[in-house]
């Protein structure tokens, strides 16, 4: 059973803007998938549907075996605890330190102070930003701030990471760093879905890519590695 499944999904916003039309794809557990396409293609809408920040107008969106259209409001927080989100603009709390930013979600889980400290220190170390633990975000570079944002997602031990243009504000070198970080997480079993319109990244990292345009899937390109495996099986 796929981790994520979309079948005939359409999304029409108030005012009649059609963001998605008849979108269908499956994503298996442990996959690394790029969502690609120009601005306004529907990448962010797909991520918002998966976070249950929006509800599909048509079709079915299934995640973790649950139909998100039928999900009760009270069940949404528990769905989101399985998902880590990373944004282009980092969305860090500027008046809190790096460690406090990473820890913000752990209070939701009701962990003890000791567990929170242990998890935060571990994540900061893994992301090589442990020396900034007591710095404010404004004192860090863009790449470092994005690492903090990734740390905030990772510390919750999510099964799925949704990244919405996480390299949009970064230069090529830092973008590479971030994608390599996602690859590393993916190699440990975390499913990653990353929206990007950066062709250089798509070319550099040969991963499955779902290409969108005007709200429709125009191409679902398997990773060359997977494609090779498929052809050898045939």
């Amino acid at each position, binding site marked *: 059973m796929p981790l994520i499944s979309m079948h005939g999904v359409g999304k029409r916003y108030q005012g009649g803007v059609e963001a998605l039309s008849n979108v269908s794809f499956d994503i298996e557990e442990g996959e690394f998938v790029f969502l690609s396409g120009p601005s306004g293609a529907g990448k962010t809408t797909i991520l918002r549907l998966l976070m249950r920040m929006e509800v599909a107008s048509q079709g079915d969106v299934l995640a973790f075996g649950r139909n998100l259209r039928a999900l009760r409001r*009270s069940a949404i927080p528990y769905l*989101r605890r399985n998902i880590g*989100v990373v944004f282009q603009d980092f969305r860090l*709390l500027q008046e809190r330190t790096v460690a406090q930013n990473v820890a913000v*979600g752990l*209070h*939701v*889980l*009701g962990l003890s102070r000791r567990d929170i400290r242990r998890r935060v220190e571990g994540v900061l170390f893994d992301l090589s930003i442990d020396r900034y633990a007591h710095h404010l975000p404004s004192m860090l570079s863009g790449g470092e701030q994005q690492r903090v944002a990734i740390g*905030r997602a990772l510390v919750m031990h999510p099964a799925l990471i949704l990244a919405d243009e996480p390299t949009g504000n970064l230069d090529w070198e830092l973008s590479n760093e971030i994608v390599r970080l996602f690859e590393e997480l993916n190699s440990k079993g975390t499913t990653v879905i990353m929206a990007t319109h950066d062709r250089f990244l798509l070319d550099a990292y040969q991963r499955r890519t779902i290409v969108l345009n005007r709200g429709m899937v125009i191409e679902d390109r398997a990773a060359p590695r997977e494609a090779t495996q498929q052809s050898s099986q045939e």
Partner: protein
Amino acid sequence: MPGASARFVRQSLHLVGQGLRGILVSPGQTAACIMSLAVAGCLVVLSASFGSLAVDVLDRAGRSARVLVYLKDEVPANRVQDLMARIGARSDVDSAQYMTREQDRSRNAELLPRDVIQSLPAEAIPGQHGLEVTFRPGAAGTQGIASLSAFLRSLEGVDVVAEPPVGSSRLRALAAAVGFMRTVAAILAALLLVGTLFFVVGTLTRTMEHRRDEIVILRLLGATDAFVRLPILIQGVLQGMAGLVSGAIAAILVSGTVNAWLAVEFDVAVRLPSWPESTLPLAAAGGALLGAAGALIATARREA
């Protein structure tokens, strides 16, 4: 399940901490909010207290009133005895004493200027025999006076039932005026509290504005409605309690000062009502309710 209990306790402590932190978001506005609640609470309690005092004073005036019953000239002494017995048998009457014409005349003379009295012959000052009826302590008020007066007028041989020094009709008018003032004060107090409620809502809304980014992040990380809204509720409850309890304490201090002044200035046993032990808990409960209402309105107005 000790793990679940520990988690619940940790989350509760965290939420209380967040509520306290919310108070510090805009300390000036929070202080102004608590101050306005305190003033409103103080005024509410004092208006209720002065209203009770006024009613108490009127009641005492009614109790100390004496009704003068003027008898017709031809009523014989044995009939006077009979009337005194009938009146004295009433449960609300303490005593009924006979008053001679001379006693009534000398009482009337005291009401006239001295030079007028000296220029008049003694028989020119009116005097009529009658009865002086005194209420039993605690048996009368404004209603009691009206009831007794009606009874006295119905008796044979009674000429006039005189208004007491503070007339019953005047007492009734005063009581009505005090009742009206109390109603007006209650309405004003309610309006004042509604006004302060909006102050509470404004302060909490500001906290929510300040925490908007954090709330968005918390939502995305899986925070429940309760986790997001409880700190706002806690902040509102703490503000409301702090405000109304301070107001009640201020009212207690003010009434203590007023009582001390009354004791020095007036030789009367009239005091603001003593404060029941439940005043502060009631103020705390009222403040908590007000704060909770403010939090509900604030979170309903703005998605938290």
